[in-house]
């Protein structure tokens, strides 16, 4: 590890934490329906939307209705994205004249964007028209993120309300998330990114003459290069902010047109964790005990920071086989040292591992380096962060509601140990909540492990694996960890744009989005109906370092116990093989 690298990591964490309170407080005000400094501008728009769509913002609903509305909007989104892809050759804003996308790939991408996974089975610049990108993917980037935030807000109301039947109006939460939170932030970020050189254009792709012609293996001489363009800056902004991650271009933010400079890189990384982190504060503020929010943020950081430093150390340490060959892998003024394979020189090791860790801690999935080329342990960090259930920051909204499910389980076991039937934030945790929270924990494990098990058995699936042995296993495990936790990050090395993976991963994404969202809303409904218990010295405090430790242990233990055998057969043994034989 280099001091300069560590300093960059520290700077990132400090800036992130500094932004938590202002943004978190703003969002709390938005969802409480209070006036904010943007209200004069956005308030009339919001009211206009309600008037046009016939929504009565004062009318609240119970959890089943809320869930129905959320699913409905996602279903419509799915249909829209699917139809846009299948019909894009007939629609405008297709300067390259790209043809219809295949049904399996369209299905995969539609599920992927509706579920906020944004697994990138497609090659954006080669298959998707500008219209599909903007009206399909970019719109879903907003809507899927807004759905996640809305569900979280409903869950928070469940904790706050007493003996209530309603948990809010989905359309209001959904509209406010989009209009007051995602749009203004995206606007600021898009402008900032465009200033750094991220492309924003409707013009067709440009042909550029190469300065130095290339001689290909088949003796053909290449003198020209196609430079893809498009409305990238606006889409990259929401892709980062909404923990979406589906790139405009195939190589995502490693592409110089998506992420040209160290500053754009820093802003994009910041955007990954910004909303998930700030929502912790929003949570604390809305449950009227800010310490509760800080405790959850602390739990996330306690997991995030060591894994970040660990991944950085693993990458900077490089490949022991090179040492054996006498290759100098030490960092110096002349070289970054360590493992630079698959990393962009303009970002280096620290910023590549930071991105990899942040993007998998949050369910973003965008990349600025190829995770497949990381060292075994460096690659295991992003994989395990996803397997933890995307609760360390996680998706916007979904990460925190996932973490709250872990909190419910942690409180349940710990609460017993203080001799009371367990309660969290004054609400008793009973059989129903335990059952629903357990479903939330179980479903992603199910999707990841069963999906991987099928994939390693079916010849159609094993054929897509580029690397043999343990690394090939890691590639498959990584793909299902990503889809089964709605991350969307790809390990690469796996040719996943094949019918098997398009369908299997699509199902994994679908299951682990909605079969988590529904139980979470069920808990929201059940909690809202309960009366609140009084806080006494006999109550388990849930804002203390002790509780943070407990929550972290629960998350890590569940993640470790579920995935250790699989990880042992993938990155762990690969690491041991790499180090054992030199």
């Amino acid at each position: 590890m280099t001091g300069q690298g560590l300093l960059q990591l520290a700077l990132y964490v400090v800036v992130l934490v500094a932004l938590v309170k202002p943004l978190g407080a703003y969002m709390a005000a938005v969802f409480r329906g209070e006036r904010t400094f943007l209200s004069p501008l956005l308030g009339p728009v919001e009211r206009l939307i309600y008037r046009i769509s016939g929504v009565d913002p004062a009318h609240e609903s119970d959890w089943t209705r809320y869930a129905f509305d959320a699913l409905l909007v996602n279903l419509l989104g799915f249909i829209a994205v699917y139809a846009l892809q299948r019909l894009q050759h007939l629609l405008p804003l297709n300067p390259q004249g790209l043809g219809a996308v295949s049904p399996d790939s369209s299905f995969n991408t539609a599920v992927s964007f509706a579920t906020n996974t944004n697994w990138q089975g497609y090659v954006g610049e080669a298959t998707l028209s500008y219209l599909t990108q903007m009206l399909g993917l970019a719109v879903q980037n907003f809507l899927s993120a807004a759905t996640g935030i809305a569900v979280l807000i409903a869950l928070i109301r469940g904790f706050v309300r007493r003996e209530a039947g309603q948990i809010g109006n989905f359309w209001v939460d959904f509209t406010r998330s989009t209009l007051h939170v995602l749009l203004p932030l995206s606007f600021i970020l898009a402008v900032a990114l465009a200033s750094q050189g991220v492309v924003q254009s409707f013009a067709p792709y440009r042909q550029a003459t190469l300065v130095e012609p290339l001689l290909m293996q088949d003796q053909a001489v290449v003198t020209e290069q196609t430079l893809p363009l498009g409305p990238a800056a606006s889409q990259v902004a929401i892709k980062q902010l909404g923990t979406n991650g589906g790139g405009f271009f195939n190589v995502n933010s490693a592409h110089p047109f998506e992420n040209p400079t160290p500053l754009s890189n820093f802003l994009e990384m910041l955007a990954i964790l910004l909303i998930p982190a700030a929502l912790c504060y929003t949570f604390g503020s809305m449950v009227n005990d800010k310490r509760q929010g800080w405790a959850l943020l602390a739990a996330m950081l306690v997991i995030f920071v060591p894994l970040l430093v660990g991944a950085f150390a693993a990458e900077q340490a490089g490949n022991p086989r090179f040492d054996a060959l006498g290759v100098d892998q030490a960092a110096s003024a002349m070289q970054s040292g360590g493992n630079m394979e698959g990393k962009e020189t303009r970002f280096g090791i620290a910023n590549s591992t930071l991105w990899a860790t942040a993007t998998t801690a949050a369910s973003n999935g965008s990349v600025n380096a190829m995770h497949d080329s990381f060292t075994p342990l460096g690659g295991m960090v992003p994989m395990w962060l996803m397997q933890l259930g995307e609760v360390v920051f996680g998706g916007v909204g979904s990460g925190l509601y996932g973490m709250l499910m872990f909190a419910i389980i942690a409180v349940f076991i710990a609460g017993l140990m203080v001799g009371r039937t367990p309660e969290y934030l004054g609400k008793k945790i009973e059989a129903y909540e335990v059952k629903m929270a357990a479903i939330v924990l179980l479903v992603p494990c199910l999707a990841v492990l069963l999906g991987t098990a099928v994939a390693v058995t079916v010849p159609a699936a094993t054929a897509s694996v580029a690397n043999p042995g343990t690394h090939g296993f890691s590639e498959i495990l990584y793909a299902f960890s990503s889809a089964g936790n709605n991350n969307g990050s790809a390990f690469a090395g796996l040719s996943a744009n094949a019918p098997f993976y398009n369908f299997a991963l699509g199902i994994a994404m679908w299951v682990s989005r909605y079969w988590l969202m529904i139980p979470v809303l069920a808990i929201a409904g059940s909690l809202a109906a309960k009366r609140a218990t009084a806080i006494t010295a006999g109550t388990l405090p849930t804002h203390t370092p002790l509780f943070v430790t407990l929550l972290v242990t629960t998350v890590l233990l569940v993640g470790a116990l579920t995935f250790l055998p699989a990880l042992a057969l993938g990155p762990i043994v690969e690491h041991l093989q790499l180090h054992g034989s030199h």
Partner: protein
Amino acid sequence: MTATHAGTPALSRPIVLQGIRDSFTKLDPRVQVRNPVMFVVFVGSLFTTVLGAAAALGMAPDAGRPGFVLTIAAWLWLTVLFANFAEAVAEGRGKAQAAALRSTRKEVQAKKLKGRRVEDGHTLVQASSLRRDDVVLVEALDVIPADGEVIDGVASVDESAITGESAPVLRESGGDFNSVTGGTRVLSDWLVVRVTSNPGEAFLDRMIAMVEGAKRGKTPNEIALSILLSFLTLVFLLATVTLAPFSRFAVASSGAGTAVTAVVLVALLVCLIPTTIGGLLSAIGIAGMDRMVRSNVIATSGRAVEAAGDVDVLLLDKTGTITLGDRQAAAFHAAPGVTEQELADAAQLASLADETPEGRSIVVLAKQRFQLRGRDLAGTMHEFHKFSAQTRMSGVDLEGRRLRKGAADAVRRFVEAEGGAWAVAVTQQVETVARGGATPLVVADGKRVLGVIELRDIVKGGIRERFAELRQMGIKTVMVTGDNRLTAAAIAAEAGVDDFLAEATPEAKLALIRRYQGEGHLVAMCGDGTNDAPALAQADVAVAMNSGTQAAKEAGNMVDLDSNPTKLIEVVDVGKQLLVTRGALTTFSIANDVAKYFAIIPAAFATTYPQLDALNLMRLASPESAILAAVIFNALIIVVLVPLALRGVKTRAVSAAHLLRRNLLVFGLGGLVVPFIGIKLIDVLLAATGWI
């Protein structure tokens, strides 16, 4: 208290022997399926046994070494048996008590009345044929045939069969002492009893069912925990089952070794699923109920026992719980111009015929202070005046003197009627005494006011410390008393309760409970009278005194056989202990898994990836011994923890945060570390004996 039930030791020889027998009868799949975690072990045992047999017969060449498979199978069966044993032993203790109770329920003849009065005449019927609302006559030495309510007569009743208390108690119609329990015996006189329960629903039946655990449904929290354990089992099932294809893929792509065998996967699964808590869960529940019974409290449901742990407001009756029960004379305050000895002398004379504890305490105090002996008034001209609600005074007319003691206003009227003058100083004395939380009694000799006797409630020794402990645990104590605010406040301060309800009426009590519940508290109280019934029904945990009325017992969800109001504190403790034990063993069980992974994972894939031996932190001798050691540890830990499950984890009077830190350290960290040591030891033994 004399407890018939408390004598049984935790694990006596006959209980253990019976437990071993029952462990085998519980192998019935219909019994096993009730516990999902142990059912998985049961199926795993069956599967490995069949696999082992097939391997031994040469029919399953890939299953592994037959000796190894069969040994694993044997230890898996032992795991099931150990869990059965834990439950059987817990039940066994209850059964022993139930047998003792049942022996008191002999078939008796009942004298069933044709009408509602003795004169109506009766016929002899079997007690078991009595229905609700039948009316029976019970005469001296008869056994009361069923639970009921006395509607006529007064009798002394021996209730030792139920309570273990040998002193007979008085039962009479009307008032708060009108309930009788089937199986108890009338010692003198007679009673007419209206039967209040149908056969099989009587108190004794409920009690037997409860201690036997026969009717024990799972409690809400137990259900929630079972759900969590089932989900964990499912997660581990997934993690292990998917290892088969993972391992096959690894073998195919690395071209080395053989795929993991089924027996290893079953062993891994059984080690990972929470068998420790799964095997002990029902034993913990039964033992919790049993602890309640041992403290002579019968809960009507397990739910109530669990709720007791949640209680954070205790409504305690002042009398009998906080104070010794009777007010005692504490000081004499003489009026101006009267000596203290003169006052004491008059007070003693006025109290000679007063048989109340208060009266006796005055005689005793006078003797202590001035060596005034209780005098024999035989041969003197005297007439006693008993206390009555009208006069609110008592005293004696002795050789022309008219000595009286009583409430200040009553004595004032008496003195003024005698033609005397009331001294302002006495009013001040009365107020001073009352402000101090004591009861003032004014003594007069004809028209002279002599002074004030201070009657004090004596707060029980140690109760203040007990309340401080409860406060530490987050439990608020509220004293309920019929006294006026002034008196109540003084005693509340002395006893160290958090709050008090003075001049308590049943309505005020009910309103107080509702108010606390509205604030999100769970309230426990105890009561005995019919007028307590609404409050008992409202409270979350309501302990009715066995001496109380049928209405009170019906309204409460627990009955204290000792009729001791202090029991409320014990009840809360038992409830907490039950929950703590569950949580502690769950934590321990899950924490154990870490070590088991480090034992089994390297062993399971040793042939494909020998590099994984780097994870063999315990340096276990061989793959087979590693797996076997983990399985053996997993089985033995259940037996080792049986006493803890039955006894319960000790609760302490500390805050929730302290308790959690302590239990996490002991059971969480302990749960991580202990199996590393245990598995290593077993492995060393296995290697040393050359078994593996």
